[in-house]
């Protein structure tokens, strides 16, 4: 095992242990723990280990490591901490709560994602605490028509058994599964019809997660249906089936598409990194002299590329200091040179400065522009 693996394993084990300890503590030494849920618990413990392991491995990749480090550094810079905190709340709201960027990618896509996400969030918020014994309900002493909820063993709130509140709470998973099923249907519909999606999708990456979510939701609903309307018909079988789907989903979390749930928050770090980049010194292209990104970013990227084993060093300086626009021009000029021979007048001979003319967009208005919207708005005034 190399250094990275050892580190990641250690992290994974630690997190799994902490979860186990929390289960013990929250369920008051398993006194509120439902033994029937032991399978779920072990799946969760494995998932905790595996997700942490993968996360740790991921964080140790050079590009991720540097973003991780820089993200925290720039967030906690005293000068901007207050603003950063404000921005943090703003961004969490728009990006994670509202999924604004996904809606911009496509309304149907945004709708599907929001439904699935909120369904999963609700379901997780209900099942995990229940499973771990972190939440349990008891009737009020002396009044069988009232329930009291306990969180981590502490009494939290009470409500009458025959109230819509109770109905909502006890059927929370039903509502969650409705959301998920609707979202999965929308997503599936898109995957079946959209020509672009059809060309690119893979079973394991794109269909399996949807199938799993669907299976978990539908088997859960079947459980409800069984005990509500069918006098518990095939309840045991359904319970096992549901457990299998949930456990498989938990075990799949670290591997496939679901892992994006854990990676995604990195986008916040990136946004603070970009804030700093825009505020501080810009990188000037060595060929055209124009600013094209932050100096910090170029320097970090040079370091990352070196760590990855790339050798983009030129005779004078690093290729990373040339802007993407000039790179494209140079590619074509290099080929043209093979056709036409090197140009007879070079910059110095003509007595002009060594700064080369910047290329201009053939069609700056097509969509988000040849360089990408960001680079145009931020760094190409």
């Amino acid at each position: 095992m190399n250094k990275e693996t050892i580190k990641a394993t250690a992290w994974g084990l630690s997190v799994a242990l902490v979860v186990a300890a929390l289960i013990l503590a929250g369920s008051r030494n398993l006194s509120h723990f439902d033994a029937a849920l032991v399978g779920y618990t072990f799946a969760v413990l494995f998932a905790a280990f595996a997700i942490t392991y993968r996360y740790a491995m991921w964080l140790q990749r050079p590009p991720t490591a540097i973003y991780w480090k820089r993200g925290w550094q720039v967030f906690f810079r005293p000068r901007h901490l207050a603003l950063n905190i404000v921005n943090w709340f703003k961004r969490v709201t728009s990006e994670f709560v509202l999924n604004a960027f996904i809606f911009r990618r496509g309304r149907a896509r945004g709708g599907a994602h929001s439904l699935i996400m909120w369904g999963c969030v609700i379901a997780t918020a209900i099942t995990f605490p229940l499973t771990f014994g972190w939440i349990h309900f008891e009737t009020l002493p002396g009044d069988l028509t009232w329930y009291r909820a306990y969180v981590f063993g502490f009494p939290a709130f009470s409500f009458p058994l025959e109230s819509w509140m109770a109905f909502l709470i006890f059927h929370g998973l039903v509502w969650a599964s409705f959301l998920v099923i609707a979202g999965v249907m929308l997503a599936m519909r898109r995957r079946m019809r959209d020509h672009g999606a059809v060309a690119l999708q893979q079973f394991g990456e794109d269909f399996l997660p949807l199938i799993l979510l669907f299976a978990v939701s539908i088997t859960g609903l079947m459980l409800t249906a069984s005990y509500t309307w069918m006098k518990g018909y095939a309840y045991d079988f359904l319970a096992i089936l549901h457990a299998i789907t949930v456990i498989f989903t938990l075990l799949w979390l670290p591997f496939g598409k679901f892992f994006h749930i854990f990676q995604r928050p990195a986008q916040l770090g990136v946004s603070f990194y970009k804030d700093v980049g825009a505020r501080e010194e810009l990188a000037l292209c060595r060929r055209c002299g124009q600013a094209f990104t932050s100096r910090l970013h170029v320097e970090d990227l040079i370091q990352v590329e070196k760590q990855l084993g790339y050798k983009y060093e030129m005779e004078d300086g690093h290729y990373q200091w040339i802007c993407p626009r000039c790179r494209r021009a140079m590619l074509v000029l290099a080929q043209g040179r093979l056709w036409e021979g090197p140009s007879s007048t070079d910059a110095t001979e003509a007595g002009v400065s060594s700064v080369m003319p910047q290329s201009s967009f053939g069609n700056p208005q097509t969509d988000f522009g040849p360089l990408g919207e960001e680079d145009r708005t931020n760094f190409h005034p």
Partner: protein
Amino acid sequence: MASTPEESQNIIERFGPHPAYSSGARLQTGIEPDDLVDTHCCFCGQQCGIRLKVKDNEVIGFEPREDFPFNQGMLCPKGVKRYLQGSHPDRLVSAYERDPSAEGGFRPIAYDRAIERVASEIKRIQDAYGPDSFAILSGASLTTEKAYLMGKFARVCLKTANIDYNGRLCMVSAAVGNKKAFGIDRAANPWSDILKTEVVWISGANVAECAPITTNYVWQAREHGAKIIVVDPRITPLARTCDLFLPVKPGRDVALFNGILHLMIENDWLDHDFIEKHTVGFEAVAEHVKEWTPRRTAQVTGISERAIRQAAEWWGEAKTSFLLHARGIEHHSHGVQNVLGAINMVLASGRIGRPYCGYATITGQGNGQGGREHGQKCDQLPGARDISNPEHRAYVAEVWGVQPDDLPGAGVDAYEIIRKADSGEIRGLLSICFNPKVSLPDNNFVTRVLDKLEFFVAIDFFLNETAHHADIILPGSLHEEDEGIVTQIEGRVIKINKAVDPPGDARQDWRIIQDIAHCLGRERGFQFTRPREIFDELRQASRGGIADYSGITYEKIEKQGGVFWPCPDEDHPGTPRLFEEGSWNPIAKGAGPFYFPDGKARFNVAPYTPPAEDVDEDYPIILTTGRVVSQFLSGTQTRRIGPLVDQYPEPLVEMHPHLAERLGIADGDWTTIESRRGDCTLRAHVVSTIRPDTVFIPYHWAGRKSANQLTISAQDPISKIPEYKVCAVRVKRRNGE
């Protein structure tokens, strides 16, 4: 009564041009089209094959059509985005009547009511001032069936001599030159003859922007070792890497051709056998070009003597060659002479009528070729027949079921129609597929004349700028809403297929024309129920003419991927290459390959004359005009297609840094260009890819951005083409010296 229209009203808001972008079904990626229709692009003369995707009677996109031999899937940006002209917010979906109080200056009226008004006005004007007082301006983007019908409508229904078409601004110099030299007006070769030729000579043609697909043919020739010679005042994309670039001074092309011929004779780079056997008139031309020494040629054309000699050597020594030219040499007050000069070079080399030996003009409009063959030209009858020739009149009159004497004689050209409207000889006008307010030179004059007309009816699918002055507007059809044939750049007759139905009250143009005929009570001969019937009559009318379509059928076109005319009977495969040794034609009747009674081609002395308006102290700079790749002609369609507007949003005036420096103008400065006829203020585009004595403005825009406010209405005496390519201007920064 046409009156000053729009400026005070919200005509632009109401009728556009608004740029349209993909939305709705056109942006969906999960839609299966109801239908895929194989047809062609609606724009230039190359007529690239394209497959339109149709969903719910809307064209929602396209697929490249790789089975059409000419373009094999290739398209320029206009072709790619052409589908956006359908379902357009600016589309005219009802008839309109001028009403200054209405929004946009026009009030929708019932179609039948509009037709009645048109018929009654035609009747009133013709009764009062005679049949010729009502004129027709037509266009070469119409299918050949429609173009044919326009000619017939003018001569048989309205009995007016005054019909002409916008090909007058386009291909006529080449047409006249070709007829004078070869006796026939068609590209002599299919484009496949470019592929393996030794020298490609391109004069006055910005192939990359105006006929983009031809680029691949030229580059393919170069792959096989061809030398590419480009003659142009600007370094066009092809000129950038061509083998020899001759930056000719605008208006001096024939001097160059004469100079080359001089060197060919001097070095005996001649095909004596060919000249002897197949041509007449060489001696006179040889005598004439004696004075065109390289020195003099260089002085007149502004091209270095070294480059001229080099060009002559490559051209002279080549075993095979292909000469292409376009509006650059044709849009001149001596456009025909320019064309004849080019043809003299070809004839002297003997390189025509054989594989990889060719000559062609690059036709501009979609049906530039077909639209100039079947009778919408002022002096022409179907089958490229002559309206002044009694035999021709008799033949066509018989097909049409009228007396030859009832047919009017030759009318006047498009610009002369405008002049006659100015003088009051013409009082009424019907225009279709033509936007003279943008496309004619000195268009401030044109605008004034349009307002003098007693009655003006315009048929169009969008309200073009000329139609702003109309009294009645009739909603016509888009390219994809009708079927019919067109003849493309190579002389290949192809079939346009219908993809969708016209929306609202809009209908196929031939129906509108027939409706007018009915309303006039002269429906005889205008009772066609579908384009195929018009085509069948056209075939008959063209039989035995030079442009003989009688052997072409819709089915044959589909089967063969197009049929090259002449095609005199149904078993005839068509004629891709003209003038082949031993070929038969109805004029020479076997005497030789060319379309004269003796079967021989004509050398024509092509004297050089300077442009009608040369530079002087007051107006010291040459203005030349042209096109950009993303726009087409007067922009009625392309200025309404968002992605194409974005590509080149507004006209720029191109000038060399030396000139700009002298004038104190920097790139992007607002610059005023003034001629004796008008002025125009545009942003400067300072580039070293143009001659320092010349500025260039693309002409696709209307109003204050229109380049044709500046151009001169001088015309070639024979072809009547206006001199768009040269006039004198002065240039200064806006608000300052």
